[in-house]
């Protein structure tokens, strides 16, 4: 039992600083194993150093985010682990 493994939903806060659409319900396809699912259903590791969302099937990093707060506020965002994101507007 890994205390630091959270549901993808836990990454929603920091990702909402970058994306204006609801990312947790976007469907992602893992570039490593091909598994598809909602971002909220993947695993999230959230801490002050950065946030990593990993494929629930193979642990491949899907999304990595670093945020710098001091001085210039900057973000670094890596989405290489996602083959593509499918966004769908709610009815």
């Amino acid at each position: 039992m890994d205390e630091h493994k959270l549901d993808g939903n836990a990454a929603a806060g920091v990702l909402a600083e970058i994306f204006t659409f609801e990312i947790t319900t976007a469907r992602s396809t893992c570039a490593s194993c091909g598994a598809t699912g909602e971002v909220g259903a993947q695993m999230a590791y959230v801490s002050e150093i950065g946030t990593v969302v990993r494929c629930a099937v193979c642990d491949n990093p899907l999304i990595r985010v670093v945020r710098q707060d001091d001085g210039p506020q900057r973000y670094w965002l890596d989405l290489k682990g996602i083959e593509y994101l499918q966004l769908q507007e709610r009815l």
Partner: protein
Amino acid sequence: MGVRCCTTVHVYDAVVIGAGGFGRRHNEPQAHMFDPDFGGVPEWVYSRRSTTAGGIDMGRGFISRGFRGRRRQAEADDRVPPGQYLVEGFPVLSAGPTPHTPLAEWSFAIEGEVDEPKTWSWEQFRALPSEEFTRDIHCVTKWSKLGTTWEGVSVDLLLEGVDTAAEYVVAFCDGGYTTNLPLEEATGGKAWIAHTYEGEPLPPEHGGPARLLVPHLYLWKSAKWVRGLRLVTEDEPGFWESLGYHNHGDPWHEQRYWGD
């Protein structure tokens, strides 16, 4: 009623740098407090903004009345690098699942730009001479712990007899984490493969059974669950170095992020 809209976004090498301008700027009031959309800002918000540390308006906006936080203030202590504060616990920051490699399957390797790669099993590794040492450690997320005690095998010992033209080293770990440093920062008594913390076997959450420890740099360089060092002729930014964190990471020069 409503339109179902489906957008497929193909993402290749999506690395976004410098999305500046979000949120709070240094020394300027928080934008939202003067945003007409914000609506009626209560009187107490403004009065609280005038309560500042030492009379200097830090431009930080809202202060939570009566909140102090758990951490101790760093006394003017020349052991505490700039921007750091002391903590009592030992925070755990995770970028992925905690590995649990059975010791019977564990190995440590020196490989890459070497004539002969070397590996040790856990038994062989623990049979090597260990050093006990006490060091201060500093995390880029601003906490520091002074006087932590460890036991581990010096990287110098592991590199004994290794001939190499390499100038850099990449530490690689269970779970895929990597970090990079110049070889000279990992040698000369500056780095260990540590297996014991505070007299006990290093717990998995802190990188056990063994982690790299390079205390003179920010702690993200002290790679948890290390499985080997790869000597390379060209520097290879690791997991965090490739995503905004400073390639070198010297706490005494506050080298936290790119461009610091």
